[in-house]
């Protein structure tokens, strides 16, 4: 399979290969879209749980980038791969995201108990 791919590259040149094979940049585009969606979600949603989901999306977009840079499969000619390090960092990010979701959910439930709403615009008790 890789031999066939190599033959294709040799025949058609780099332009064909860039159009066909998946590169790190493809993954970076996916990560960028996930990150942007998460940022907009955090900024726009008025439901506290929607804000939480935005945070999850942002962390996930960062993880996509880590995995892309860590992958030996996607490493292009002359590029350096992160190797195992990138995967370990991605694992830590997943764990910390889980911890953050637990605490944020507890805070949201507390807010709901005290204010009887999950609308973050109503959390203005500290307004001077």
């Amino acid at each position: 399979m890789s031999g066939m791919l190599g033959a294709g590259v040799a025949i058609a040149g780099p332009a064909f290969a860039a159009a066909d094979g998946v590169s790190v940049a493809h993954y970076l585009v996916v990560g960028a879209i996930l990150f942007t969606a998460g940022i907009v979600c955090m900024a726009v949603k008025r439901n506290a749980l929607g804000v939480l989901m935005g945070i999850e999306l942002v962390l996930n977009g960062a993880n996509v980038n880590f995995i892309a840079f860590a992958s030996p499969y996607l490493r292009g000619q002359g590029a350096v791969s992160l190797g195992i390090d990138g995967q370990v960092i991605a694992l830590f990010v997943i764990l910390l995201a889980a911890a953050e979701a637990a605490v944020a959910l507890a805070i949201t439930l507390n807010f709901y108990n005290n204010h009887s709403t999950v609308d973050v615009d109503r959390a203005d008790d500290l307004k001077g």
Partner: protein
Amino acid sequence: MTGCLMLAAVNFHTLLFYLFAILACGFAVGVVVADNVVRMALYLVLSLGATAGLFFLAGAEFIGAMQLMIYVGGTLVLLVFGVMLTAQAPFVTIKTSPGDRVLAGIVAASLLALLLQAAFSVEAWRRPGLGEVAQPAATPIGVALVGIRVDEPPAGAPPGVRSGYLLPFEIVSVHLLVVLVGAAYLARAKRRRTQRAIEVAASVQSLVEPVVEVPRQARGSASALATGGTR
């Protein structure tokens, strides 16, 4: 026969990549666009699941499995529980004002333009992957977490001593313990100060006025109710 040939000509890695990428990005945009919080949770599950597929395609099978188990299986169940606990009728759909949407669209477009420009800025990242098959990563990751590196250094990496991950592992484990205790403390069921408890406390207070030992759970409201501002 021609079907077989056509099937052989398809690069399944590329095909699956585009499938999972479109699913992940599409459902991520769906999370932003949807107003119903239950739909948002569903779209988030699908987006994170498709991202796990991308991890598998990149050769990070252990991280992909962890993504499915921890994110999709744990965090999202937690979020859905939060949705169910707070899903009173007026809060299921909280609309964003149109002005905010326009502003967010402008910010998103400029941020996306910046990130895409950065993604394509380095020439080495745009070259297609060489397709070097990765070694199974579970054992090197597990051993690296206790401080020993058994994996080969990646091609092109600078030589030198590579550190293990024992200290971050310990920090994360203590962090998870603290988070467990803190989340349980924050989300615990409060003892309710019911009207009945306040009445009982008030009657006790009026019977023995000067030195009184009010039941602990009703002390605050009872003192406020029975003695007013005299104390």
